[in-house]
């Protein structure tokens, strides 16, 4: 049944490719696309109540076959995947309605859908690598196809570094195989011993996944990719594509020994949290602001992995996937209508629907109760104490500060910007993540946490100070455009940073 979920999406992707040959009508293309999105959801609803289960593809022995299954972790990641793809699927039908290349976009989205479902259900690390690459290839093409001025350059950089990271991940798989003789995660866990080779392999795998997840200091490809993509593509990249490396890190954390690496990951996580949120404060482009905030909050996931608080990481990954998707869809809807991405020119003041959605999502991003993010944060916090706890809360103060700045600027209205006078399908779809997060928050965590109030008060006080000092008048960092030769040069610098970080982590893992 799990294989059917993946196969259904791939079958409809193939059928959509065929539509280019037969001049199919628009409703037909839309129907095929939505079938590819929603039929796996129905298949999951049938198998989800069955509880934790697994099986080996083709009926082989576990030792020689590819095991697939659903457990507590993969259930949350799969749920996030299906929620995000369902929302973005409906949004994309409206967004690409008149686009002559819509069947190509739809087909690529379905390939990514299938690959990510496979990633979250496989128990075989090589299979995980292949499926992650399949999702990445779709992402590269979707970014390159997007209409942004520098979309191809952004996609090329993404491709170059993502591919290098994938090969490093494969190298670590080879090292693990040489030490254990298995590719199945559970069998690896049962047969693994303490050795220098395993420490190095785990270190290399984590560096590769940190790059693919866009966590500081290997985030350099991410802001350009987000800001050059179409709204549905950006929502998918932010919401789901980056969850695949998070899932891989989680599986490594569960089945392989982390040893000295945990401490290093903790430092990197906190560095990412503060770097991302501070950089977000200085952005004018609303998507770059959200991209840097996302880089910051991915640091939280790394902190959770460092403390081996694995179930909390899965909850946070779910909540973060939904909130980022919601924020990119809502701000994308606003910016498409008002023909700007500059947060100083955008406004939601007259659009009550968008205003409510963005405020609710901002509350969720800051992990304030009652949202699912607050529940996930309360789970993550259990593994922290002392200075780590202060840094953790400090990071959320910074994230809230970014959200306060964004909402403050979006509230400003010079009266010239258009707004939706009637609720349309894109606004409704954009609002669903906010409703979902608050509903789940009320179900799982209907309490008001004093620490949340303190965090909000600190963020509010700092924000008032910023306003009184006129810091908001500072125009922020303008994006520096890159030319063909400059792209090559900057790739060199980023490569040096990448390999220097790799050496540092390996030195630490030793």
């Amino acid at each position, binding site marked *: 049944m799990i294989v059917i979920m993946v196969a259904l999406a791939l079958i409809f992707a193939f059928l959509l490719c065929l539509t280019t040959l037969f001049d199919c009508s628009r409703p037909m293309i839309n129907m095929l696309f939505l079938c590819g999105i929603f039929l796996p959801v129905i298949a999951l609803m049938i198998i989800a109540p069955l509880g934790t289960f697994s099986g080996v593809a083709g009926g082989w022995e576990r030792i020689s076959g590819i095991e697939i299954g659903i457990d507590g972790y993969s259930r949350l990641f799969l749920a996030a995947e299906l929620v995000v793809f369902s929302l973005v699927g409906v949004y994309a039908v409206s967004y690409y309605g008149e686009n002559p290349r819509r069947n190509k976009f739809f087909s690529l989205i379905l390939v990514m859908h299938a690959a990510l479902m496979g990633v979250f259900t496989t128990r075989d690390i*090589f299979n995980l690598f*292949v499926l992650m*690459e399949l999702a990445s*290839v779709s992402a*590269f*093409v979707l970014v*390159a196809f997007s209409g942004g001025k520098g979309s*191809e*350059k952004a*996609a*090329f950089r993404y*491709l*170059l570094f993502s*591919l*290098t990271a*994938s*090969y490093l991940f*494969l*190298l670590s798989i*080879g090292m693990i*195989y*040489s030490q254990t003789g298995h*590719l199945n995660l559970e069998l690896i866990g049962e047969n693994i011993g303490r050795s220098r080779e395993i420490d190095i392999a785990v270190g290399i795998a984590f560096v590769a996944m940190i790059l693919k997840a866009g966590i500081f200091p290997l985030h350099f490809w991410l802001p350009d990719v987000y800001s050059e993509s179409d709204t549905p593509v950006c929502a998918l990249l932010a919401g789901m594509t980056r969850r695949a490396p998070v899932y891989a890190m989680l599986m490594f954390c569960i089945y392989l020994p982390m040893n000295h690496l945990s401490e290093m990951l903790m430092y990197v996580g906190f560095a990412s949290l503060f770097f991302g949120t501070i950089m977000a404060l200085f952005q004018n482009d609303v998507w770059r602001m959200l991209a840097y905030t996302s880089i910051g909050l991915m640091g939280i996931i790394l902190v959770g992995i460092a403390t081996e608080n694995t179930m909390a990481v899965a909850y946070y990954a779910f909540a973060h996937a939904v909130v980022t998707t919601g924020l990119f869809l809502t701000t994308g809807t606003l910016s498409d209508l008002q023909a700007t991405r500059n947060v100083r020119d955008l406004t939601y003041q007259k659009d009550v629907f968008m205003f409510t959605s963005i405020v609710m999502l901002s509350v969720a991003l800051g992990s304030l109760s009652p949202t699912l993010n607050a529940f996930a944060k309360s789970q993550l916090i259990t593994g922290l104490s002392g200075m780590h706890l202060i840094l953790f809360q400090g990071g959320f103060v910074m994230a809230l500060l970014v959200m306060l700045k964004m909402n403050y600027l979006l509230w400003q209205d010079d009266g010239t910007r258009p707004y939706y006078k009637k609720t349309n399908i894109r606004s409704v779809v954009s609002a669903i993540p906010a409703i979902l997060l608050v509903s789940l928050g009320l179900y799982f965590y209907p309490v008001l946490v004093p620490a949340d109030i303190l965090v909000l008060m600190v963020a509010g006080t700092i924000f008032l100070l910023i306003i009184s000092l006129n810091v908001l008048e500072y125009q922020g960092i303008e994006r520096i455009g890159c*030319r*063909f*030769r400059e*792209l*090559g*040069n900057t*790739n*060199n610098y980023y*490569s*040096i940073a990448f*390999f220097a970080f790799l050496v540092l982590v390996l030195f630490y893992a030793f």
Partner: protein
Amino acid sequence: MIDAQNVGIVIILVGMYGLMVKKELIKQLIAVNIISVGLVLFFMGLGYVEGGGFPIHPVDTAVDPLPAALMITTLVVDVAITSLGLAMVIRIKKEDASSEVADA
């Protein structure tokens, strides 16, 4: 000792060096391909057994076929992504040439 695994790692390092110093996008893509070649050699070394025969015959000692099977899959992924990368380089070059004409 010189074996396939060590040589594979040296080739991977050569590819990394290329990524760090080559400014042309096509050369950067070739550097990533060199990393891929090193990786294939590394995996071949993993499966190698001294004096081992074909794993499809009933022989006493056979080489491990799994690394070879994995590398065939990797090569498919590699070819697909490399061709995609090359297409992107061509389009980037065309776009830059047209914008330079427009600037002039």
